[in-house]
């Protein structure tokens, strides 16, 4: 998944899934992170596969993060393979004000792990987001519990986030990207992908076919 280098700059394109129950704030988190926006208006996401965030990671690294929201399939958990295909990271989101959404987290995580893996067979790095923390009743201290849950369920870690008040969203993303980058170092570039064809790129495809670059 490593990008080709443009001069000195290393460029990466990462597909990251954002999953979780309906209404936990997935779309809001993406909007917040990518567009610096928040809206109370709840509307299903229409017409957008993913949002792209371009991160100048450091002077030599550019990361293009594709955040894939789940579309109308979310309600019944029947995602197509297209959604999972070749993802390298995931956020699983729940709503701290609704216990049932936390209970669904393990289901989502399980589903994720069964449907997508890294090339080396490991599960893709995933981070748990406890969203709407701005609405948390009192600061009940279950940090240890959550840490433990993450360990057991295979999350890299968890963050209390608020899409509304912009809490921890950037940090969570940075944390995930760090892990993806660390994984990426170890992964061999998949050479067989080189001659894959995207249909809209016929000129390029034809050229690559004839062996000239």
């Amino acid at each position, binding site marked *: 998944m490593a990008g*080709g280098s443009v001069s000195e700059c290393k460029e990466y394109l990462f597909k990251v899934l954002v999953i979780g129950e309906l209404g936990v704030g997935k779309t809001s988190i993406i909007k917040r992170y990518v567009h610096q926006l928040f809206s109370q208006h709840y509307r299903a996401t229409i017409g957008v596969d993913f949002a792209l965030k371009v991160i100048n990671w450091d002077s030599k690294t550019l990361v293009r993060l594709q955040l894939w929201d789940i579309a109308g399939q979310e309600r019944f958990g029947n995602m197509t393979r*297209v959604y999972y295909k070749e993802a390298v990271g995931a956020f699983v989101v729940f709503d701290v004000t609704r216990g049932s959404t936390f209970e669904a987290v393990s289901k989502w995580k399980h589903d994720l792990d069964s449907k997508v893996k890294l090339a080396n067979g490991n599960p893709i790095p995933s981070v748990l987001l406890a969203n709407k923390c701005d609405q948390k009743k009192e600061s009940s201290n279950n940090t240890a519990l959550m840490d433990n849950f993450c360990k057991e369920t295979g999350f890299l870690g968890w963050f209390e986030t608020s899409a509304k008040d912009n809490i921890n969203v950037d940090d969570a993303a940075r944390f995930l990207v760090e892990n993806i980058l660390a994984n990426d170092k170890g992964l061999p570039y998949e050479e067989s992908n080189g001659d894959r064809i995207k249909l809209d790129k016929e000129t*390029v495809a034809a050229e690559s076919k004839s062996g000239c670059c």
Partner: protein
Amino acid sequence: MAAEDLPSEFDVVILGTGLAESVVAAAFSRVGQRVLHVDRRSYYAANWASFTFNGLLTWIQEHHEESQPEEAQDWSSLLEEGEELIYLSSDPASISNVQAFCFTSEEDEEEEASSPDPPNTTEEETGGANEDVVKETSETESADLKEEETKEKPEERADGAEKEQRFTALNDGKSTVQTDVFRPITQASKTDGKEPGADQPTASAAQSQSEPAKKKISYAQLVKEGRRFNIDLVSKLLYSRGSLVDLLIKSNVSRYAEFKNVTRILTYRHGKVEQVPCSRADVFASRQLSVVEKRKLMRFLTSCVEETEEQRAYNGRPYLEFLCDQQLGDNLQHFLLHSIAMVTEDTPTEEGLSSTRHFLRCLGRYGNTPFLFPVYGLGEIPQCFCRMCAVFGGIYCLRHSVSCLVVDKTTNRCKAVVDSQGQRISCSHFVVEEGSVGTDWKMVTSPPRFLSRAVLITDGSILPSDSDQQVSMVTVPPIAAGCPAVKMVELCSSTMTCMPGTYLVHLTCQSVGSAYEDLSPVVTKLFRTPESHDQENCPSVLWCLYFNMTDSSGLEVEGHHLPSNVFVCSGPDGSLGHEHAIKQAELIFQKILPEEDFCPPAPNPEDIIYDGDNNSSSMGGEENGGAGEEENDGAGEEEEEKKEVLEENDGEEEKKEVVEEEEQSLQTEGIRLQPLETGSGSVGGSDSCSPPAGSQISRRDAVQTPEQHTASTHNPQRESASCMMGN
């Protein structure tokens, strides 16, 4: 994940996630219709699905079990005045004669290269599915020993489908230690009297290899690496200028898929597999053709592009006759008839010529052959359309069906459907897969037809070459009079349909007999199986599957004894391309929404760049030709979205970005446009290794995000200079 009630009103309800249904779903959703798309199966794509090896074993088992017709529940309590119910059929028996064979050893045989395996009589089920595959167990010479196996298959146990599937070697008691026994175990004949006779292949002791040249991949390895397989139920290819490719490009659904070129066309002739020269370069490079033949072929191919008087004179007469009269000679005649036109000896000339022209038109668009194959298998394609439908708000529900239609007696229209949970869901239109419509309701003009299919996992290519990553289309003319012509596709592991070190081979023909009867003679000739002889150089079949599938190409979308707003989609047909399903989907769409555009390009998410925080640094620094576009996405009631498109002219790749309008009172000051990247059209650049996530889509379009519509703004935007159509 949460199971909850479905909304009770939709514009279109679609049952079945096959290709035509999925295209219909995407098309409706794309123009703002509320779509509910369900499938009673637990997977997408119906008979177009692809499975991992283990998934396929489960599928085999499912088709092996007696499916009990579900008790039709009485939903008449949901009826209102003047309504009646039409029950759908719950058991579409479109698959029959399912037979699987395993010709490789169960476990790895490290130390046993020279010593025969003991006969495997142990039942190694792990309490799971009893995958009744019998295997070749011996390494010793027991060739030519044919034993009649007439035993009944053991009872199927059908629990724990998830468990690792084991096979049981059957020993009939007569076999000696050295006898390799194989016979089909998985066998599901849903006999309705109309399908081809189910062959009960009896017998045959295996011939084993005299010297294990290379270590065969064991069944255990196939299971272990089962995830690497994506085995399609249907075997088709995409014509590079066919209607599916055009639709994928037009709609931008292409962003969800990547393809491989079919790298060569092969044919089976005089007991040998040969490469068919089909491009100019191939013709000149060909070693099989004489100089004279090369000239003749080039002349013929050039001349047949245009219709001539001479050709017209042959209308109605066989293409073969026309070819004969061209004095092309046997070689060329064979290539032209079987591999290029891919027709039979009695196909009329006009049809043969039109197939030939289609083939020629498709050459060179993406590669040296006219065909493409989707990475991860054909089963991806319906899912790509489903994803598009979902992205535009379509609701998906698997393991969910429609039990019956609520019909208004006076208007003869379907007002609502009742789903498998007994929920009444109103809809304006209902689209259904053929298999769910009981025969009583269907208007069938021609007798039912079937396809015979075989799937082989082999250990080598049928025609080894410099590269072990060839994707081959092989035409096998009838091997004897009365036998069907067989189309064969050999896939290598870089298509992501089989594990490294193996090839996945699909055989398809119109059924004459059962799939086993039709295809096993071809398999025996072209591959090494326990039944074949003198085939040291052929690839070995490790595992194979035969089954028949209904060929529903004759089915019409309407005109059945069904309400006027109910449309039927047929399942896969026997042709190589996808024209049938795509035409059907478009026809249904146009009947329901004659005014609307069919699958207009979806906005490219990559165009929407909100780069709030820092800089706009890096990447490019090129001039951005300001351009915007305004789009009416056809979603009638939705306001258009405005955005700005910046276009970067850098090589052939168009780079633009779209900025979404800010919502409500929120500031957009943080939003900046940032060029995507320098247009790296080069192979090996970031483009070639990016995921199939749409990063290379060049068509730009509006983004319709309902939140935005609450913001009352509606600014005209600059027009995009160009909207690069796929072509």
